[in-house]
């Protein structure tokens, strides 16, 4: 994409296991304790509480009347809260909201409502299935709620590519801005921990360990499921009023290792989430690089790479690296800088890996001046 304005991250909003908003995220990144809660999973041998990073959406009432929220499910509430936090963080005037483009990335969509609809059909019969649950179960329901509440009438897109959802959707966000379809894109990633997701997670990967996530310890499965929403307000440089950093590139693809086309960054933020299978791939990519990994603050979820981007944006604005929770492990073939170390260069790359070959790579740059 040549000849286009740079893209600036003007605002950041997030809610997850670490808390709510930039201040909570910064506090967690700086080294405050961030312990998971629990998710009750119904199993054949009874209800099992498993560790999980849960998100508290109660602050949404600061932005919307309780009455408005009555029929809005958790998935959309997560998205709404992330949106309002990012817009407030950027101080975007209300009148500019109508011209926003909206892009949402979600690995699994509104699984709570999907499950609720199925339950209504199974429990009550075909004739009594819940229309409300069905309408709320579509993947773009959160994007619709956000556009309705903000009055945003620009283009509106939802993307679902499981763990590649964030880099994939970001590439399209960059194009919208480059094409000048819109001056700003409200970009967000959302995933909720519903009963269904909890059970599937339990069946496919077993109960998560009670110990903290240690994603750089690749011989162990240490992932803890998470939920939340991370939002970025993206603007063309000419329209931006300030912000955190630039969004320089976002690509996805499939390549055998070695050969990932990322530029030499000051820091490589790994999306490693404690999954043993992908841990080895991350180790191969990170060979001899300076790396950080913040997933132990929000847990394992397809929306996770958007939290990585939020962390990277805060680092570039502050100029100092946050410590990787749990620190380095001897067998991990990379340098893990201590908290407070300088970034080391003007760029941070965030990498996400999935399956045997897929990668997503997003590069952020220091914002010198506007």
């Amino acid at each position, binding site marked *: *994409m040549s000849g286009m304005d740079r893209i600036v991250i003007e605002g950041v909003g997030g809610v997850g296991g670490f808390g709510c908003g930039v201040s909570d995220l910064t506090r967690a990144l700086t080294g405050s304790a961030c312990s998971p809660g629990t998710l009750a999973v119904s199993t054949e041998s009874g209800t099992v509480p498993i560790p999980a990073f849960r998100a508290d959406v109660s602050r949404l009432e600061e932005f919307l009347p309780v009455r408005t929220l009555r029929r809005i499910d958790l998935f959309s509430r997560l998205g709404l809260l992330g949106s309002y936090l990012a817009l407030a963080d950027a101080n975007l005037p209300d009148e500019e909201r109508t011209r926003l483009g909206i892009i949402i990335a979600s690995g699994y969509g509104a699984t709570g409502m999907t499950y609720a609809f199925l339950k209504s059909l199974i429990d009550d019969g075909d004739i009594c299935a819940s229309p409300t649950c069905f309408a709320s179960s*579509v*993947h773009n329901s959160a994007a*619709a709620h956000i556009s309705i509440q903000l009055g945003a009438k620009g283009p509106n897109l939802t*993307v679902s590519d499981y763990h590649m959802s964030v880099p994939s959707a970001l590439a399209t966000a960059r194009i919208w801005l480059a*094409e000048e379809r819109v001056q700003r894109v409200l970009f967000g990633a959302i995933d909720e921990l519903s009963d269904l997701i909890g059970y599937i997670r339990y069946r496919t990967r077993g109960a998560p360990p009670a110990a903290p996530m240690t994603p750089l310890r690749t011989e162990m499965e240490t992932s803890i499921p998470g939920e939340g929403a991370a939002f970025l307000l993206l603007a063309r440089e000419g329209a931006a009023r300030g912000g955190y950093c630039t969004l320089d590139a976002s690509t996805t693809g*499939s390549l055998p290792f070695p050969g990932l086309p990322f530029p030499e960054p000051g820091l490589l933020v790994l999306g490693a989430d404690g999954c043993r299978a992908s841990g080895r791939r991350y180790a191969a990519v990170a060979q001899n690089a300076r790396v950080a990994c913040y997933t132990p603050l929000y847990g394992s979820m397809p929306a996770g790479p958007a939290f990585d981007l939020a962390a990277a944006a805060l680092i570039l604005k502050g100029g100092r690296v946050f410590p990787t929770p749990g620190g380095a492990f001897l067998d991990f073939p990379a340098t893990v800088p201590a908290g407070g170390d300088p970034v080391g260069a003007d760029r941070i790359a965030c990498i996400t890996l999935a399956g045997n070959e897929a990668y997503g790579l997003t590069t952020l740059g220091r914002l010198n001046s506007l």
Partner: protein
Amino acid sequence: MLPLLKRGEVLCSIQRMSVAPIAITGMGCICAAGRNLPDSMEAILRGERNPAPPVRFASNHPVRYPVFEAAEFEAPPDLLRTSAFGLHAVREAVADAGLDRKTMGALRVGVCVGTTVGTVLSEETFCRGYLAGLIPDMTPIRRILRGNPADVIAREFGLSGPRQTVVTACASGTDAVGIAGSWIRAGLCDAAIAGGADELGRITYIGFISLMITDDSPCKPFDKHRKGLNLGEGAAMLVLASERVLRRSGMRARSFLLGYGSAGDAYHQTAPQPDGAGLRSAISEAMATSGVSSTSVAFVNAHGTGTPDNDRVESRVLHDMLPGIPFLSTKGYTGHTLGAAGAIEAVFTAACLEIGKIPANAGFETPDPDIANTPVREVTTVQGTVALSESLAFGGNNSVVVLGKA
């Protein structure tokens, strides 16, 4: 040669420049009308349609709503039916484009697919077992998690470009085509496979019945007595290529993707905005980016679901913005194929432009006094070099592509 917008012919207030046309070099389709695009086109021009109660699944709902199933299509057991539809359409489109795997391997080819059910963790047998406290078989869930339609297509053809699965409900297929065109213009890939795919299952069937927007008789888009939609299933895929690739590869353009626009209603989760403001914006953007004037428009392939709300809003917008231009809905032949609809209708639109005629709007008999214009009632010869294909969706998504004659 494409007619360009003349000075003073600006159709809309959207301030966007026209964009470079993207060649459509191959098309494939499977739906209730046929197992490939030529068969489907012949069927719809003959006026054939065969809605019937579903045979692939059962329901204890007392009313047996007709649907448009893709007859005699069986997906391999390890593949989602949605992804199998997608692959079927891609194979036809790739063959139509004259591409082989070696040529595709030398290009950076992206995949952009729209769907509504292809990435949803919605499996009834699994959920029944879970709710009953059993240990349900995980096979269906694994099939879904491995079955993302864009990934399946990219894996099958060894494609190395960007992949995206678009889930903007019933606008997904149109959005996927428009986005893939942008990828090529932006240099993210040399070529792209773009379209939509969706299977019809019990959950979708019951869901739409619960919303009370399905017709218990064959659907009647734009008719006074329309009662709702009939669901369908299938897929359509287009091979899109840059001009550079077109020159280098020897492919020929069957049609061109000239413009794309999309806009949100910001109004309601399941109902269109009564004044159609979002659709108006989407049409305006699509026309502005195509750089063509309304005088060049041969016809509009409308969303035309047959629901009272959709058809009222859509016809009002067409009456205001593109008065006198023939329009039709092809959903009377295919049913509403949801995430596939925009793609199926895009390939029908391109194929109709090639032959210069459009089928009758199946199901239309009685004009509605609330609708100022009427769709075509018989096979109609059309003049003009471009055509629009529209999609409206839950969530208030409106998307439009402008296609041009090669």
